[in-house]
């Protein structure tokens, strides 16, 4: 293995045009679900999106495969990192409406509480938006929005 294949893989890879169309459609309809459906890792984590005005909430549906410590049980810190980073990108695409596809430059995560075996939600806030970079803070929580399980500072390159 390990040889990059240029051809699209059905169900996995899409053309850039398809991807851009999904972004445009998500912006027009206010529903980013079609883009999420194109991202295999988003499906793998069980991510879903709801949009309420300027608020974009991403949900990670609980599944046993997300567990990182079976003795507690607690979600894997990596699943929270994935949720936080994906939320930052979706927020940049659908709320900030950046032109380029966001690329993560850096990501700093504070783990604040043990994340239990239930659904987890995440929301991002833009701290600074420039032409080339967007800086966001992202909060992940479970039952109580005011008691985050993890917070991230994410720097995206968008131009």
């Amino acid at each position, binding site marked *: *293995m*390990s*040889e*990059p*294949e240029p051809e699209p*893989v059905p*169900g*996995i*890879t*899409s*053309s*850039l045009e*398809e*991807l851009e169309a999904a972004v445009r459609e998500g912006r027009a309809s206010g529903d980013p679900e079609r883009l999420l459906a*194109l*991202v*295999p*890792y*988003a*499906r*793998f*984590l069980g991510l879903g999106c709801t949009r309420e005005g300027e608020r974009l909430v991403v949900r990670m549906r609980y599944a*046993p*495969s*997300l*567990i*990182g*410590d*079976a*003795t507690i049980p607690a*979600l*894997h*810190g*990596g*699943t929270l*990192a*994935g*949720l936080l*980073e*994906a939320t930052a990108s979706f927020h940049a695409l659908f709320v900030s409406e950046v032109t380029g*596809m966001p*690329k*993560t*430059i*850096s*990501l*700093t*995560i*504070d*783990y604040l509480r*043990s994340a239990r075996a239930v659904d987890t939600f995440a929301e991002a806030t833009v701290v600074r938006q420039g032409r080339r970079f967007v800086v966001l803070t992202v909060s992940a929580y479970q039952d109580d929005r005011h008691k985050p399980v993890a917070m991230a500072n994410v720097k995206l390159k968008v131009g």
Partner: protein
Amino acid sequence: MWSDEMAAQVDNAWRDLVPHNAAIGIEVVRIRVGEVWTRLRWAPALVGNPATGVIHGGALSTLLDASGGLAVATRLGRPSPIATLDLRIDYMRAAERGKDILVRMECYAARRSVAFVRGVAYHDDESDPIATCAATFARKGERGDGKERP
């Protein structure tokens, strides 16, 4: 205590105790006290950008977090639970479609209640990194005596 043979044992333990490491397919390549090498195989389900086939950052974060925890574990005198306190990742370049990602992670300090790691993710050559990482881990159930910091 830690040796190359331990790598297979850790892989097996992860299957039961850390289901998500097994779910994304993290493998332990090599392990010794204070330093571990791990691998994540490219898999269609982990793709984050469907136009390029590049693996999502979340999968790489999971690999780095898991590798950090394992590096800390090699420095503990006896098994004790650990939890990630914080994790920072800097991306130097995109990972390539179809290629395995390797990580070398080092636990350079393990104090009574906190342990510190740093690591690098790469494809073939560590001097051409995809990302670097720094993280801290809490040793749960270990209480400081008030004299040692942190």
